[in-house]
């Protein structure tokens, strides 16, 4: 297999006496969906927040494309090509889809006057989003629709699409389907599946084993901060996953 896009080497993080994450290593390759599972408090979100640059690891290294990175802020991680979509989604309801996708990195009219007057190239931004809609076969309403008018699943898709349109090679999704109904979940899961063919590495956190089994190529299990399993999805059943999470031995077949 080719070199991983993202590699975590023995990451550890403690909060006082609580060892939230203990020497966890993980490699993510382009076009791979990794299901990251574990019981409540297993350390999934803590691991995610270290990858996202929201908190700093006590020990261990984060390597992106062979380069060792020290993220101070979420923007550092984003610049390195890692986008994390938290439950909050980081979307502004009062802005439309295009405005949200380009928020904070608006394109300006090329040339000195464009830069001096801070004039946005609105047409170029729309064109880029239009292209993205087609490239990823995005099933979203018109791109001028305000995010306030979107459903939960559509918002998830916008948040993920923003990451991918900005060329992030790694997208981390912390429980993207937790608050969604059946149809909305389908919207998000099918989009995650489509990302695979676009050479994006996805780390997908979920408590729903069916969702994990549907989209993940590989599954990685955390228990009390330690990685207790890492292997291909195809060999495991839902019962196996639950057993790994809770620490019960896998029932002998």
């Amino acid at each position, binding site marked *: 297999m080719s070199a991983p896009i993202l590699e975590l080497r023995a990451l550890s993080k403690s909060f006082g006496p609580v060892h939230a994450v203990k020497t966890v290593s993980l490699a993510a390759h382009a076009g791979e969906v990794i299901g990251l599972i574990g019981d409540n408090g297993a350390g999934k979100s803590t691991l995610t927040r270290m990858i996202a640059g929201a908190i700093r690891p006590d020990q261990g290294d984060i390597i992106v494309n062979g380069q060792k990175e020290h993220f101070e802020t979420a923007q550092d991680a984003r610049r390195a090509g890692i986008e994390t979509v938290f439950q909050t989604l980081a979307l*502004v*309801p009062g802005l439309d889809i295009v405005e949200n996708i380009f928020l904070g990195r608006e394109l300006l009219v090329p040339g000195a006057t464009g830069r001096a007057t801070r004039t946005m190239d609105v047409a170029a931004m729309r064109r880029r989003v239009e292209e993205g809609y087609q490239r990823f076969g995005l099933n979203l*309403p018109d791109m001028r629709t305000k995010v306030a008018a979107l*459903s939960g699943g559509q918002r998830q898709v916008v948040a993920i699409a923003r990451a991918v349109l900005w060329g992030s090679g790694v997208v981390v999704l912390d429980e993207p389907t937790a608050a969604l109904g059946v149809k909305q979940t389908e919207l998000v899961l099918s989009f995650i599946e489509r990302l695979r063919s676009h050479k994006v590495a996805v780390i997908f956190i979920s408590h729903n084993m069916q969702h994990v089994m549907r989209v993940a190529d590989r599954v990685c299990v955390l228990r009390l901060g330690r990685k207790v399993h890492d292997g291909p999805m195809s060999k495991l059943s839902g019962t196996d996953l639950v057993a790994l999470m809770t620490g019960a031995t896998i029932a002998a077949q």
Partner: protein
Amino acid sequence: MTRQQILGWTQRNGLFFALAILIAIFSILSSRFLTVPNFTVILLQNAVIGLIVVPGAMLILCGLVDLSVGSVAVLSAVVFGQAMASGLGLPVSLLIGLAVGAAWGAFNGYLIAIQGFSPIIITLGGLAGARGLAEFVTQGYTTYGYGREFAFLGNGKLLGVPVPVILFAIVFLIGLHLWYRAPLGRHMIAVGGAKDTAAEIGIKVKLIPFWLYVASGLAAALGGLIIASQLDGAAVTIGTGMELEVLTAILLGGVSFTGGRGSLFGVLFGLLFVGVLSNGLVQVNVSPYFEQVAIGAALCGAAALDMFYQRLERLNVPVESEPIEAPQAGEAQ
């Protein structure tokens, strides 16, 4: 979709039509109303408020407010007057007057945007404090008579257009550019509507409001100087009640007081609506007491309409229905 489009269109243009109807009514009632000189008067009467409304609306869009504008206007005018009286000359005195406004704005901005103090409390303090300071500076002695050059600021005309109206137009055009064509407009909506998200994305959630307060102070100072020029004196009455006139235009214009939503064109129509209403009522000899009642009624009407539109908008959210798993009751016999 069409219903939603119609809805959105009337919402965006409702105030424009209210203004058009108002103008039509006054035109029928008074032959002097719909004339170029009268409209020049309306613009001139509202130019100073208009100048201050532009940064004011941006602050409201960010979820903030500046109640100190009227007091900053009088303080700037009074300090200018003292500078003139002590022989510093017009250019230096003008700069000092404007600097007072910018400095007060920076003071507001520092405490509110950087340190996180309540915008209402800090600028309410400014409302009392800056006017008190202005009265202290004058010591009951109003300076006047600043010469013809300064009179041009408030009373001069270029190509038949009063100078204050030109200044208002310039500020408004800059405002339009920033609001609609520069990234700032979206950033302000993000700051006002979802501050934590904006910060997370890397938008300057402190610096943007800081500079808006500076701009508001500067605009208030310019407004104070224009009025001082028109009066040819730095009276301590300058700017009384100005903050309410500014807020009325902004809120009538449909900018949400909680931030995150609003249009600068709406604010222009709000400003003109109040201007036309005041002027028209005088033209048709309605008691001036009634003017305040009419403006108050218009504000309440605008608030009610806004609620109404928001309700309708919420009803129009295109949420896909979840598949219903229960079998059709009719067929299960």
